[in-house]
């Protein structure tokens, strides 16, 4: 037991750090937000160091419920990074309403996500997922006085509860028919003859997880929640929880359902294609940039699922690489959205208001163009690389029709990405004055991520390949 504790340092650090920040907030009040921010960032940094220290370890702890391995480590590093960025960008957004709870909630959400990424038992899976979700519901409605924010929180909560219900139903079926909540045991059971109960269990678990990654047809909440939630929170939702849910889904599919390829693969293929196509088509008519990015995230999840559908080590590697690149791109795009304020300091979310942005703010427009092309997967931007890996995994797993369908549908997605670029570069300047300024932290994060996503990223391929290969190897 004590030995086990030594292996979950990242989780311990996050728990303690979260509680300390919470206590500080309770006693010092909301004026010391800078301090809480710093505490939260230090906590995340320490947790990340712990993850790196444990990267080579491969062990199971607490009666096989959690796995400490490179796969979880890879996901956690992305999660912590995304959480840190979400904390960094918050104060400028919540000019008046920044409260101590924000960093605390993000810390607890990160803790839950870390558990999700490490879970190898249906119970830990559920605990991690709910810990993350509960924090997320509160974060979505963080601006209590804002109608849209409250609506987003409520919508997220109701639909999230529905998804949790489905997931729990699936879990109970799997437990009932496989006789265990342990992934490895379930794998041996589904490796034999599949009965109707196990199939239903697989379907419901995947449906519940599909909701969390916002794969079509479980995506309905995404545009509304992304639009309504405060922008830093949206940036958080679009990045870290996606990583956790996708990592969890990967582990469930490969570890727990691995032998029953026929059962899960067709579901994942359906989710993948539906997400790519609907994510692309749904985005076309959008006038709100946050809604558009929501559809873009649905679309990108579809490509990750193509990698997952392959079910091979290469596929898992593609998913992990995709997650990293996607998170960097999405955070960058949301940072650009955060910079868009009119003369009165109000946030601008309408796409037509971006018209002529390249003449008002050339740097900002260029960064956005990089993010958009990267999300569309147009080389030489780095967004191409994970898409390539996903398609390669699919082709190598003899899923050529899936790859062809996916890549052809990606052209539909390219349409709305280049539409944004058209608005920024080709259209005449809009009426809306976009104020300058922005702080150095946000500017730096944006510049670094835009540079990384332009050609520089390719130099990281060997490193990224080695890390993702080590992470993916754990599952096989």
């Amino acid at each position, binding site marked *: 037991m004590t030995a086990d504790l030594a292996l979950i340092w990242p989780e311990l650090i996050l728990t303690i750090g979260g509680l300390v920040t919470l206590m500080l907030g309770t006693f010092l009040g909301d004026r010391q937000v800078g301090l809480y921010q710093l505490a939260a960032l230090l906590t995340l940094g320490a947790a990340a160091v712990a993850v790196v220290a444990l990267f080579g370890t491969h062990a199971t702890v607490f009666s096989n419920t959690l796995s400490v391995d490179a796969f979880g480590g890879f996901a956690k590093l992305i999660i912590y990074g995304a959480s840190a960025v979400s904390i960094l960008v918050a104060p400028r957004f919540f000019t008046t309403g920044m409260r101590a709870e924000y960093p605390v909630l993000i810390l607890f959400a990160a803790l839950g996500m870390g558990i999700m990424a490490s879970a190898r038992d249906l119970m830990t899976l559920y605990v991690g997922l709910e810990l993350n979700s509960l924090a997320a519901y509160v974060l979505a409605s963080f601006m209590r006085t804002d109608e849209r924010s409250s609506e987003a929180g409520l919508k997220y909560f109701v639909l999230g509860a529905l998804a949790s219900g489905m997931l729990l139903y699936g879990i109970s079926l799997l437990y009932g028919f496989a006789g265990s909540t342990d992934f490895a045991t379930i794998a041996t059971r589904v490796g034999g003859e599949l009965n109707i109960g196990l199939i239903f269990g697989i379907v419901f678990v995947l449906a519940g997880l599909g909701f969390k990654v916002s794969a079509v047809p479980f995506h309905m909440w995404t545009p509304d929640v992304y639009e309504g939630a405060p922008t830093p929170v949206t940036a958080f939702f679009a990045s870290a929880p996606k990583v956790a849910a996708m990592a969890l889904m990967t582990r469930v599919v490969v570890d727990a359902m691995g032998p029953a390829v026929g059962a899960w693969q067709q579901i994942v293929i359906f989710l993948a294609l539906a997400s790519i196509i609907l994510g692309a088509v749904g985005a076309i008519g959008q006038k709100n940039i946050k809604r558009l990015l929501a559809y873009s995230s649905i679309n990108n999840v579809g490509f990750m699922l193509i990698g997952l559908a392959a079910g091979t080590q290469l596929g898992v590697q593609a998913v992990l690489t995709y997650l990293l690149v996607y998170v960097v791109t999405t955070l960058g795009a949301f940072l650009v959205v955060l910079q868009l304020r009119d003369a009165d300091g109000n946030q601008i979310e309408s796409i037509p208001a971006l018209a002529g942005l390249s003449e008002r703010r050339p740097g900002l427009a260029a960064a956005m163009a990089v993010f958009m092309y990267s999300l569309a997967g147009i080389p030489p931007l780095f967004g191409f690389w994970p898409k390539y890996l996903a398609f390669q995994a699919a082709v*190598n797993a003899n899923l050529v029709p899936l790859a062809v369908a996916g890549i052809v549908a990606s052209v539909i997605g*390219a349409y709305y990405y280049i539409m944004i670029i058209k608005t920024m570069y080709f259209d005449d300047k809009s009426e809306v004055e976009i104020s300058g300024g922005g702080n150095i932290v946000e500017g730096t994060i944006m510049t670094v991520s835009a540079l990384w996503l332009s050609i520089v990223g390719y130099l990281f391929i060997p490193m990224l390949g080695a890390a993702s290969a080590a992470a993916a190897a754990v599952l096989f």
Partner: protein
Amino acid sequence: MSGFPFLSLLLAIPAIAAVACLFVGDRNAKFVALGATLVNFALSLVMWSQFDIGGAQWQFQERSEGLFGPFDWALGIDGLALLLIVLSTFLMPLCILASWEAITKRVGLYMAMFLAMEVVMIGVFAAQDLLLFYIFFEAGLIPMYFIIGIWGGANRKYAAFKFFLYTLLGSVLMLIAMIAMIAEAGTTDIPTLMSYNFPVDMQTWLWLAFFASLAVKMPMWPVHTWLPDAHVQAPTAGSMILAGVLLKMGGYGFVRFMMPMFPEASAQLMWIVFALSMVAVVYTSLVALVQSDMKKLIAYSSVAHMAIVTAGLFAFNQQGIEGAMIVMLSHGVVSAALFFCVGVIYDRLHTREIDRYGGLAVNMPAYALFFMLFTMASIGLPGTSGFVGEFLSIAGIYEASSWVAFVCTTGIILGAAYMLYLYRRIVFGELTKDDVKAMPDLNPREWAIMAPLAAVALWMGVYPESFLAPMRGDVTTVVARLAPAKPAGDAHVSAGKPKAAEKHGEGHEVPAGEAHHAGGSQ
């Protein structure tokens, strides 16, 4: 000198200059761009002089193992790529000069996009790694999208979208094919893949996927419709580079990938290429004949010329492929020049309507002379570059199929019709319109663009050996690679009567004699 990284340098100079252009302000950007492209041109000429004709197939090779993990920064060129690179570097300074006064807004960004375009073009021709090639190939969409969309004509947004999505849709299928090839052959190295024997049934699919991409890029009928739109809306220099080099990426892809990598499939499916080329030659020539917009007319003529390229390439013989390559080079120079000719008068009158002009020979004699030369080169008058290419390729096509040669020749006659008709309406006739009367003749800057283009068009026409020599060995390699799969032609060309009769008696293993024999028994 062999260790000198010419190709990386050719890529680095415009790349650095492109970034610089964004920051140095509009006025300086022009000079930075012109300087960089001129240096690059000089460098490529040095490279040409260092190129060992008849030496190793691949020269100036550079390779950094494992820089990008699964794929490499692998560069290297053969004669085919060399000439196309020199074509690109030759046209770039002219394009920059052509936009010297025509582009007034956001000059820095414009120059940066053109330099990015140069990087992409050189990269496509120099890449020796399949993925590196794909990255360059696709990357060209981004600068061109900006060039058409920001500095284009009235309907530029539509044209930019159409260009981007059309070519993207084509390219993505090629990516899937590349992935399958890498999985099958276990390498991304282009020279290795060129001699790898893919299973025949797989070749068919790979061929079709590559064809989907390259046919759009080429462009072949019926997927050419993006080209007239893109050309009409693009600024003059954009059209020059689009017609001059970007279309050549398609032809280069045919001769670099489809033919040597999938010889059996190429032989099986050559009828598709021939059929589409025949339709394109006649149909687009007829369409060109009725255009009232100068740029559209030249755009359609590009489609017709490219159809001769595809037909020539798929003749599978030395003359056909060499001819097709010369048509590509010649078209690169001549169509760029023609688009510039259009640009010259467009800058003065701001309309592309043919009917708005007339009688320019009177007040713009120098312009009329150059325009005449390029018109003749486009038609294929002996002594100009067009003749060499068209003659060789049609001679090659004739060996493969006399019917295709017949139809392609018809296209050349139609080509003469629409080009001469265009020339007559613009340059000859009465000089009646007042605003046309007021148009001044070429200024020194325009001279500086016209003169090199004219010189090259004549050089290629009078002494094509300079251009044929570097590529001869490479074409022979491709022909040898295709030989086992090559279907018998219907023309039964033999090496001349007396010689053939002599060989006839010797036995059946002599191909020429075989062909003659078969011809006699028909």
